């Protein structure tokens, strides 16, 4: 639109320059945005570099056996032997349990909120689900210790141990006697599942709501039932978005410290069982770093942090590649 209100610009020259800059400041704006992006990238690189550099002595002294799986590992600050496989296993298995439990739960919540919920319930219920994400993790840990572990996890673990744990294939994962207080890898996995459900559920709900109505109407017109529409049409359509939600949840599960430390039992052992107390990478760092006066001990802990950092990046990268593959397969590229 043309500006029909011309007026002589009587501003002083410095003000004229400023006005000119603001009106034609695209270059400046671009430069600022590029700087922001570069700052984030630089931060990640700086963290990775710092972790790498601060653990140099430990890397050269402990070698590859630090993070390779072994049947018998040790973490001995007194004699300087450090192997982090129990913690790596603990992080991986608790996150896996969390995703396996949270995925159907969150999908169910999201589908209910997006498709099946009466409209008067949609807002309050959605708000409550998102409120779960706002609860601090220490509160989850506390609730876990006093309520969740004794009343849910301990009986569940005993049941699983006595039934599925006897089966030959699952005896490694569910064998052994359930820890009496409930503190176990299973407990950590279940609490993580509760913590990542709101993340996955709200993003999945948004993905489902963004799918155009034409898809649903076309499916119903072709004679599909509501369930067939959801399962065969909508979920594949939004698969890349759902996978993105799972990545977000996985990221939270990998790094979660406080709630896991409070319920996992903090025991460095070499069993693989979900029913026994375990340890995760974030827990060992949180527990031991403040008191690690021995130089090799603190460097070993920094190396654990480096392994966690790299693992998070790799898993996120792998998940994003899966999203890309899924997006390519859907008709409109997943958008």
């Amino acid at each position: 639109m043309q500006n029909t209100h011309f007026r002589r610009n009587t501003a002083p020259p410095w003000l004229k320059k400023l006005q000119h800059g603001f009106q034609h400041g695209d270059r400046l704006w671009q430069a600022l945005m590029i700087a922001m992006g570069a700052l984030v990238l630089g931060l990640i690189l700086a963290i990775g570099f710092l972790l790498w550099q601060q653990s140099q002595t430990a890397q050269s002294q402990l070698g590859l056996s630090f993070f390779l799986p072994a049947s018998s590992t040790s973490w001995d600050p007194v004699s300087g032997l450090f192997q982090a496989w129990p913690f790596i296993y603990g992080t991986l298995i608790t996150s896996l349990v969390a995703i396996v439990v949270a995925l159907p739960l969150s999908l169910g919540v999201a589908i209910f909120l997006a498709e099946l919920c009466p409209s008067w319930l949609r807002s309050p219920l959605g708000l409550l689900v998102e409120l779960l994400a706002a609860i601090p993790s220490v509160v989850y840990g506390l609730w876990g210790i006093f309520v969740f572990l004794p009343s849910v996890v301990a009986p569940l673990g005993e049941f699983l141990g006595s039934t599925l744990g006897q089966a030959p294939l699952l005896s490694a994962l569910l064998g052994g006697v359930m820890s009496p207080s409930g503190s176990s890898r299973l407990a950590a996995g279940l609490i993580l599942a509760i913590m990542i459900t709101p993340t996955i559920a709200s993003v999945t709900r948004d993905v489902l709501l963004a799918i155009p109505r034409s898809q649903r109407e076309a499916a119903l017109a072709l004679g599909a039932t509501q369930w067939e529409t959801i399962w065969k049409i909508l979920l594949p359509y939004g698969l890349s978005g759902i996978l993105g939600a799972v990545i977000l949840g996985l990221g939270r599960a990998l790094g979660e410290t406080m709630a896991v430390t409070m319920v996992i039992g903090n025991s460095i052992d070499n069993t693989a069982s979900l029913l026994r107390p375990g340890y995760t990478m974030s827990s060992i760092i949180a527990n031991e770093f403040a008191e690690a006066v021995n130089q090799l001990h603190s460097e070993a802990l920094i190396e654990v942090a480096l392994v966690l950092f790299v693992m998070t990046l790799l898993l996120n990268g792998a998940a994003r590649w899966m999203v890309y593959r899924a997006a390519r397969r859907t008709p409109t590229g997943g958008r």
Partner: protein
Amino acid sequence: MRRNSYSIFTALLLMAVLLSACAPAAARAAQVIVQTAPPVTVKETVPVQQTVVVTQVVAPTQPATLPAGSVQINGAGATFPQPIYAQWTYAYQYVDPSAAINYQGIGSGGGKKAIIDGTVDFAGSDSLVSDAEYTSGKDLQMYPALAGAVVVIYNVTGLAATDPAIILDGKTLVGIYNATVKNWNDPAILALNPALKDKLPAKPITVVHRADGSGTTEIFTKALASFSPDWKAGGAQSVEWPVDKAGNGMGGKGNPGVAAAVQNTPNSLGYVELDYAIPNKIAYTQMVNKAGATVSATAEALLSAMNDFADKFTDKLTNTIVDAPGAKSWPIAGYTYYVLHTTSMTDCVKAQKILQYINWTLTDATAAKQASALGYAVLPDAVRNQVLAKLAQVTCKGQPVPLK
């Protein structure tokens, strides 16, 4: 409507902030570490303080002439003495209002790191400063402040509060923590507890240890190492626990974490400082000491342990008092120390205040009573005199710092 609700919200927020700023300091000394003395702005006193510093080196002035809260002293370190340090720093405000002392319990290792880095004025530590730390800290010195007992707490289903306490001895305790004594009705435990023969269940013992590094662990593992050569994991702040490898171990974070883990896990056992067991009313064992007598963790037992080793202080004024040979001594005890720089302090007013505070904690009768009430043991005279003599050797800028 929206503008109204925003302004109401902002007004409420402002009111909340103003009310919290005017609220009186918490009354319960045991719960709160008070950070400042009765409010006086520090800015106004800066010129006064600088004048006093100049004259301090020539002729020490009376501490009472300094404005209240003007000398800020920071301490950090072990969590073991934290409850009594909180009470002492609060009580000391009434003794000398010009010193505002605060102490944070971040762990012995954190305290030692902090005093080496110079971020605190004094540190508290249960674990001994290592040779490497003496080198990097240059002029560090440890001064025993108190002694505390480490007790073994337990939670056995089938034992009521009226039942007598379980009795353990050194070898059995080492066996439990080595996972060679696996069940509660193991013959070794039954031999020491004939009265409980029918009540100890045939269940496995869940052994709880500290997940974080700690001076408490150092005292406990040093005691285990002294009890029996079977304990191979060493005596240090953080060790590799054989019970973890055997599969019946659990870690708790901090003394409260171990206490909570034991209370929540049936048929479990762990070690905590005595002053965590007493207020939480957790059952703890009696021990058979080196002399063969069954002792309970009391102040007399601690005093006996301290007196047993009173002449065995190193020139660094450190001492390990585990497995004391006396008939009345508690076998798992340790000192908690102050850690100070001895020659490199540059603020001589602050140095004097720190030494006066430490002197007060060591010699004042009220301070001693408060410590005893919480379950700590104050130093016997034989030890106290050595500590005070060493404290008198602290210098600031070449001049000795007066203790009074």
